[in-house]
């Protein structure tokens, strides 16, 4: 029996974006910019000092950001565990992660107003609100505008450096075939994971949790992280499926890879539920007013429906859906569940941000939300095409590529 060797199969596979990139970029970038412009106009027309616009922007921004962060975690954990199975899809995740560079630019609409003195998003930025409020005064050494700005710069610097490092090395190996690059990536994956943990935790505290500055939950960072992993892995699956549909990677990515990615999705569906419930149960059980306000706002005035939708759509339904082996092995079916999870992950971000905008009037939704989602996703994809460039979409000279191509689930 002949066993296919790694080089043979890779040689026959289409592994670069080639002409597709040149065609997709202007289209995606155009749609993205137009959608953002439309959203800005719609936001201005509302006449609420852009309050709705900023809240919706933050929702969608945190959604897109979580894809990049989830993909980054995927890259890091593969190196930390010296995984062989995932090499075939690792470049896709490296690109999705390194694409955090566009998110740096897209963060300006959140950061700039805060620095320029707008209080539309964060109550703690307003000295009038802080004065006389004991809790806010107590937190002001941390929650103040200059320090907030410094921290944002720090997060992005860390993410930019880490993602660049891993993409650069990996691409370099495509050309040199130098196996020591793999070793250096493995060595740095540990410290990088630590930095990742710290930055994601505090970014979630700063950008999302501080929307309700009096409330706090120490598990909040992991909550955002758990959703980000789901989003990242779902995006990797969808990217691989889309590339295969365009005739690329048809031989290097197999049902076995989808199966393993599906297992990760399944695991993190439960992980998200575990974290979400851990946060909920302790607050529910202790029943202390300063903590329960958070869930009270999400159980009243029409928000209960969103909370329930999350319990079912983000946990129970995909849990059962992703349980059978066959669901994970069939590309189309798995892609369906990835879209499903991304939809509910978006709803999760919405559930984190929007009750702060509209605690009394119920869940708001409008064209502006759609425009911002389309705008940010398109710009993210356009930039991903740029990041990918003309390089291979598989680490073609990774020493473990053969192992990945021959992957088989027992």
């Amino acid at each position, binding site marked *: *029996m002949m*066993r296919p060797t790694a080089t043979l199969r890779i040689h026959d596979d289409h592994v670069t974006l080639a002409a597709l990139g040149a065609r997709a970029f202007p289209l995606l970038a155009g749609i993205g910019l137009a959608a953002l412009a439309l959203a800005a106009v719609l936001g201005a027309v509302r006449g609420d000092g852009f309050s709705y616009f900023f809240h919706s922007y933050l929702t969608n921004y945190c959604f897109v950001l979580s894809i990049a962060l989830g993909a980054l975690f995927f890259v890091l954990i593969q190196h930390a565990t010296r995984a062989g199975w995932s090499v075939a899809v690792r470049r896709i995740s490296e690109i999705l992660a390194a694409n955090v560079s566009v998110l740096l630019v897209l963060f300006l609409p959140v950061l700039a107003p805060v620095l320029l003195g707008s209080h539309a998003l964060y109550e703690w930025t307003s000295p009038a609100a802080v004065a006389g409020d004991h809790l806010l005064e107590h937190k002001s050494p941390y929650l103040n505008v200059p320090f907030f700005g410094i921290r944002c710069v720090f997060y992005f610097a860390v993410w930019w450096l880490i993602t660049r490092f891993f993409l650069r090395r990996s691409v370099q190996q495509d050309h040199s075939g130098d196996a020591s690059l793999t070793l250096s990536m493995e060595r740095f994956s540990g410290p990088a994971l630590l930095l990742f943990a710290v930055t994601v935790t505090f970014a979630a505290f700063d950008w999302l949790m501080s929307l309700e500055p009096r409330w706090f939950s120490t598990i909040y960072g992991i909550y955002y992280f758990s959703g980000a992993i789901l989003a990242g892995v779902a995006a990797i699956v969808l990217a691989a499926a889309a590339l295969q549909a365009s005739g690329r990677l048809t031989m290097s990515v197999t049902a076995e890879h989808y199966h393993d990615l599906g297992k990760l999705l399944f695991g993190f569906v439960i992980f998200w539920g*575990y974290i979400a*419930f851990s946060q*909920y*149960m302790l607050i*529910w*059980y202790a*029943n202390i007013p300063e903590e329960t306000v958070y869930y009270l706002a999400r159980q009243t005035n029409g928000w209960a429906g969103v909370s329930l939708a999350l319990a079912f759509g983000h946990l129970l339904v995909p849990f059962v859906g992703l*349980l059978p*082996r066959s669901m994970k092995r069939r590309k189309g079916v798995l892609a369906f569940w990835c879209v499903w999870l991304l939809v509910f992950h978006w709803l999760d971000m919405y559930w984190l941000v929007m009750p702060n905008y509209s605690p009394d009037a119920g869940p708001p939704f409008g064209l502006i939300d759609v425009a911002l989602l389309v705008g940010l996703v398109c710009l993210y994809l356009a930039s991903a095409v740029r990041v990918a460039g003309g390089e291979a979409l598989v680490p073609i000279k990774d020493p473990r590529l053969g192992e990945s191509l*021959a992957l*088989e689930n*027992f």
Partner: protein
Amino acid sequence: MAEKEPTIADAPGGAVAALVAQFAGPDELVEAASQVRDAGYRYWDTHTPYPIHGMDRAMGIRPTVLPWMVLAGGVAGAAAALLMQWWMNAVDYPYIISGKPLFSLPAFIPVTFELIVLFSALTAFVGVLALNQLPQLWHPVFQSRRFARATSDGFFLSIEARDPKFEESRAAELLQSAGAVAIDVCRMPATGREVPTGVYWGVATLAILAILPPLGVAWYRSGAKKLPRIHPILDMDAQPKYRAQAFNPLFPGGMASRPAVPGTIAQGEMDENTALYLGKLGEQWVDEFPVPVSMEAVQRGRERFNIYCAPCHGLTGEGDGMVSQRATRRAEPNWVPPLSLHAEPVRVQPVGQLYNTVTNGIRTMPPYASQISVEDRWAIVLYVKALQRSQHATLDDVPEEMREKLR
């Protein structure tokens, strides 16, 4: 390789139990496995130093039923956990904890989750062993000396004699034509294969040793013992601290408790408003609530009463709380069953006196000032009053328009 005839090694012994064939490498073994599969054998297996891709297919192994067993285990775990907690908390020992409902799903999820994991994991563990027919103390293939290399660099295929299609010469021929490089005939041991007596003695000794701890526990729990009880886990029973009224050589007079510095008041003890803080005006119990009376306060009082008082006094105040029932059943020597809160001597008490009972306790009832805030204590008294009235209501308490219905 095919040109060389494989060696067939046979050793003296009982009836033939199995044939073990060695193959040159993994690819040859996969090929041979598909031939043996096509020949229709049932009791046969391949043995390799590492898992080989494609072997399952070559051997015609169908997907395992293990996942279904694990799923059933998990569902059983969830059902067992929910039933258990429902029975314990809502039926057998209905005890309100933190004011939550007796059957309170969120509080039951952690145990349910853990039992799902435990049952699934145990099912997977036991299921894998059972499906692989493990533990197996003896197998004919171990008669083959060569077979030891199955864990280092040998690739083997064995066919057992218990297979209905087994016939020594035909099986050997099949293995030869499939490319075996060597074939060993494994026979039942001539001496029989009884378990050595040492094993029986070992198991018996372990069993006896295992019985000792439960026996000891049973003995200690049966009847009164003169010795102090064994205290393996101290919990917080012995704490390195001074109790009230204890002796402490550090301070003059040897008193562990320090008296207040003259002219100072401890935090939270500024109780100038005696009606509110003590339930008293001068030496008289107050008869009017020193706090606003509202439906909200009654509700709050009911919640707090159910948490703090109902374990002893019962939800209706009759004195039939779980703690009291249990203490009475066990004939605890120090237990005085509480009076019904609806008994005449309690009903006539002014609200200030009830407040004082909650604050400072009375006779064997402990004080609750440290756990319950002043406002909540008054809310509880308010609810006790409402409870009392509910049991002694007159027609005058019923709204006019409803009275007709009762007559």
